[in-house]
């Protein structure tokens, strides 16, 4: 069964360093997402991506964050200068289509990358 994969599973970095989190969405999916979950808190939306551009982003997704689809399979999240408060589990998700008022599409999540900023 197709699944979303993420690498690395755990990343430790020093404050101020750049990190790139990688995801391989399900191959025929068109919409890609990043979410994060700070320990003990709820899963929060960061950004959605379609047709090589950002569709929607939350207030969390500031100038320190960027996303890219560098080739036909990978989808990356870059954090330019990490802060302690960026420590969280980052989830990539993908969906076949975009939900609308009359149609739903489930988002499939990867296993996550645990980012620890020291």
């Amino acid at each position: 069964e197709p699944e979303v994969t993420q690498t690395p599973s755990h990343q430790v970095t020093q404050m101020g360093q750049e990190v790139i989190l990688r995801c391989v969405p399900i191959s025929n999916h068109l919409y890609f997402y990043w979410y994060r979950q700070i320990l003990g808190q709820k899963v929060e939306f960061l950004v959605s991506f379609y047709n090589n551009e950002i569709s929607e982003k939350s207030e969390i997704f500031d100038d320190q964050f960027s996303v890219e689809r560098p080739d036909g399979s990978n989808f990356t999240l870059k954090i330019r200068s990490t802060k302690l408060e960026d420590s969280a589990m980052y989830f990539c998700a993908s969906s076949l289509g975009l939900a609308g008022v009359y149609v739903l599409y489930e988002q499939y999540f990867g296993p996550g990358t645990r980012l620890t900023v020291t």
Partner: protein
Amino acid sequence: SQELEQSPQSLIVQEGKNLTINCTSSKTLYGLYWYKQKYGEGLIFLMMLQKGGEEKSHEKITAKLDEKKQQSSLHITASQPSHAGIYLCGADSPNSGYALNFGKGTSLLVTP
């Protein structure tokens, strides 16, 4: 912004018992999604509901959407240890570009 309140926050049930988890939205529900998360792992899609009154079942899990109450319930029949985990409800809306907004989750433990 839309808030999703899940209740209870945590639940311990004996194997074989039935249980219900509720998810109440502060705003109109368009799509309601249920996911299960094992501790420290990713989210596993369970079910999605759209229309008011819609009910779906998968194995021993049934989810229902009450559009008027802006609420969804997840019912597990004859719980098993494999049902243990964190159950998350998520909702999308046109105001958020259909990104998912999640509740805080309900932690379920099933004891032998």
